[in-house]
């Protein structure tokens, strides 16, 4: 039998792949596949969370100092943006399930826009760090890690690093590497997510998804929520913990 879509089967929905018995089996397989994939993603981020936990415990003052230098406002705004995007994504899945194509399109577009907003704000934050010479190691050649440190008694300068007692600049560099590794890896996932949603948007515009078949929308939604949840962990760990030590 040729590969691709089988014509002539009893449940001959055009989206049914030849090796599945019926759409229900196909849906189950797709959803379980995404869940399993998300488990691997948790383990992937897990390695970095472990490194964060280890070094934060080892160098609390340095990590607090570095964390205090992050832009809390932008981080918080981004958190709200992502939570909103998860909401619109959930609505998009719901609209597909009940067969409201217009709502589905609107919600998908909103989700994509919110995702792009998040990435834009993230880019602004990265630029700020670049300007303050906080890019660790030689990640960007010619721009080594070399932040200006606020001296005691000098007027407050938000571009300078406020080192808490006991904080070593070397360990601040470690924080920033973990920050860039984690948020960078998260941003890569966001970019992939936006790409996936663009594909979904195209097929949705072509009217492919309805109450009978909306599996791709559903599993893209799962992925989107996962990426959102990763941020929900990253935000307090990177931006909030240790903030009370500022004074």
């Amino acid at each position, binding site marked *: 039998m040729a590969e691709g879509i089988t014509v002539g089967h009893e449940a001959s929905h055009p989206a049914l792949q030849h090796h599945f*018995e019926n759409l229900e089996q196909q849906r*189950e397989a797709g959803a379980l*596949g995404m869940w399993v994939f998300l488990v691997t993603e948790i383990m992937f981020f897990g*390695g970095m969370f*472990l490194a964060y936990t280890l*070094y934060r415990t080892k160098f609390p003052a340095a990590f607090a100092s570095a964390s205090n230098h992050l832009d809390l406002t932008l981080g918080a705004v981004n958190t709200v943006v992502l939570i909103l995007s998860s909401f619109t994504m959930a609505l998009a899945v719901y609209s597909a399930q009940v067969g409201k194509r217009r709502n589905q399109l609107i919600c998908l577009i909103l989700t994509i826009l919110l995702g792009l907003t998040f990435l834009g704000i993230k880019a602004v934050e990265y630029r700020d760090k670049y300007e303050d010479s906080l890019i660790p*190691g030689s990640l960007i050649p010619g721009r080594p890690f070399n932040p200006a440190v606020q001296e005691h008694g000098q007027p407050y300068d938000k571009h300078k690093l406020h080192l808490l007692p006991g904080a070593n600049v*070397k*360990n601040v560099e470690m924080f920033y590497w973990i920050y860039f590794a984690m948020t960078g890896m998260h941003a890569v996932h966001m970019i992939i997510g936006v790409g996936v949603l663009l594909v979904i948007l195209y097929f949705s515009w072509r009217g492919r998804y309805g109450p009978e078949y909306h599996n791709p929308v559903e599993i893209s939604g799962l992925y989107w929520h996962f990426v959102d949840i990763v941020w929900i962990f990253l935000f307090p760990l990177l931006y909030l913990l240790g903030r009370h030590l500022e004074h």
Partner: protein
Amino acid sequence: MKAFETFETPTAARVNYINAEYGLKSWLLTKDHKRIALLYLGSISAFFFIGGLYAMFIRLELLTPQGDLLSSTTYNKVFTQHGIIMVFFFLIPSIPATLGNFLVPMMIGAKDLAFPRINLLSWYLYLLGGIITIWALLAGGVDTGWTFYAPYSTTFSNSYVVATGVGIFISGFSSILTGLNFIVTIHTMRAPGMTWFRLPLFIWSHYATSLVMILGTPVIAITILLLAFERLAHVGIFDPANGGDPVLFQHLFWFYSHPAVYIMVLPGMGVVSELIANFSRKNIFGYKFVAFSSLAIAVFGFLVWGHHLFVASQSVYAGMIFSFLSFAVAIPSAIKVFNWTATLYKGSISYDTPMLYALGFIGLFTVGGMTGLFLASLAVDVHLSDTYFIVAHFHYIMVGGTLLAYLGGLHYWWPKITGRMYPEGWGRFSALVVFVGFNLTFLPQFIAGYLGMPRRYHAYPPEFQVFNVLSTAGASILGVGLVIPFIYLLWSMRYGKHAEPNPWHLPGLEWRTASPPPTENFLATPIVTWEAYEFAPPEEMQVIGKLKNEGLEVADAVIDGK
């Protein structure tokens, strides 16, 4: 024997997955799990050959204590590359990606894996990772040991660490995707009547393997990524100068790489369960114990990585906990060995080649597993760490275990895969040669290890020479024993006797379809009414669906007319 023949004529003219389509494109773009399994089989064999060449150079170098054949730099690269190729590009994909890929859907009565495109993608990722690694080896090689310990790999090595790392990173995703595909397929695509406890143990062990693949492999992926950034940009995460901890790398590395040992050996255990049951025509003794012991190994396997760090400045208490858990993980393996042995009791045992490999596996795995207890035992491990004892131990598991199971499985399913029989006499002969050669290679290394010979030594004190000479002699025999099947299996693809659908007269689903099977495995969806390894008179173990000689059109008609 007439009673078993369900096909009126030999299979030559019949349409099957191999001759359904022709041309390179039909292979490179195939989504058929059986064809992908063959793609894997070809590429894995190539990598095995390369890894074997490196092994040959290691053994030749160690023939004399002076280190006169290769320079120390070359030798370091040779053993590193032997390890990397064999571990990441042969052992980890070996059974799951070839036999597993071919058989998981067939054994559960499915038409394909749940995600055929992802399956093909996983082969391409494997190939891409392999090509990048080979490129790195040709460009100058890598000399860090397959373990890539920081800070040597991040700061001191002058070799192609990052390129090799990228190769392993990419091939890791191939492993993740294979595991994901197996889990979803086993959960959602079992044929009607194929309940969890009717699954062949091969499936259980692949399910357990897949769990390890999806949970462990992402961790090595991120670890290698961090290592590469550390090397390229000196970000400091494993560098003591920045407050980084090189031992963190070891923890992360072994968090994957110890469970990876179970990725390698669990599928082998699955193969051996099949072989032992089927070649003694007995249901497996204590089916549920064997099945759950696979899961237990997969789960406990994640809790014992610290036994690689007993001398790496781990705390005494952490050492004791890891030692305790490492002893605990030995129990499920012991249960398996005892159940396999008990299965033979009052069986009807044949001496076909696959069975010889399975018996060899049990013996060697017992030695390999028991010597693992030496290394779980704290005080003895302090002496044995990083000596040839370790080398011998893991080769007993990897070669004596996985490789023997792989060869046994390959012979066993060869008629199903190719539609041809391998020459039985040569098969038995080479199995014997492999067994003798293997033991002669690695038994002396246990002794050299306890006497204190450290591993990864290019030159060594002359008192160890006798063991190394024995080892090299054994390796030559082993090499011959491995070349023989390579030749006759290739030969049999063209000249071998045509295989019947069920040449061994077994109840498993994969034997109830043609050899080689049609593209969607079965002519009609099978309905399973029998338990695993439920042997019945031959006429009751027939091919599902009617098949005549007219080819695929008829086959389709059978399905559509159902």
